């Protein structure tokens, strides 16, 4: 899993039927110091995250597990909203 900032959302009308009703958010992965790192990506949202929030997301087929038994065709999903994080 990785930290990311939600920077936007994607509107898709014509889509795989198993994506119906699921929010698609644009994520910018961030490093532990909060700086942007790596490429932006689009992820399904399983927790009701909004633009501007810091979240953690999972990559891979596991991203569809929160929507079980629907087989959502995704490779990334937001699975938590971060309240804060602390570094040693």
């Amino acid at each position, binding site marked *: 899993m990785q930290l990311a*900032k939600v*920077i*936007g*959302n*994607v*509107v*898709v*009308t*014509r*889509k*795989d039927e*198993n*994506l119906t009703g699921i929010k*698609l958010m*644009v994520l*910018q992965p961030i490093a532990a110091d909060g700086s942007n790192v790596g*490429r*932006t*990506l*689009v*992820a399904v949202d399983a927790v009701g995250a909004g*633009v*501007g929030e810091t979240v953690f997301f999972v990559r*891979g*087929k596991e991203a*569809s597990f929160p929507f079980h038994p629907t*087989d*959502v*065709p*995704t*490779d*990334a999903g937001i699975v938590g909203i971060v309240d804060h994080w602390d570094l040693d």
Partner: protein
Amino acid sequence: MQIARVIGTVVSTQKHQKFEGAKLLLVQPMALDETPRGIPVLAVDSVGAGVREKVLVVIEGRAAGEALGRKGAPVDAAVIGIIDSVDVQE
């Protein structure tokens, strides 16, 4: 998932049986500013996307197989949506 532009179609006659009837698209992943990112990939199409359309591409094996509706299909990418708009606030 990645945002990509459909840049072509691929025709293949001799292929694995799980590809029967599947449409193969050549898609170019893009950054948010629509500059190309990496090399184009082949993706199966599950939504009826056409050339030049902006699409959402899943690049992961099992998810792509599900989009195709076939378990065990030897695929690793699928077009799962046609993008109306991307709104970024940053």
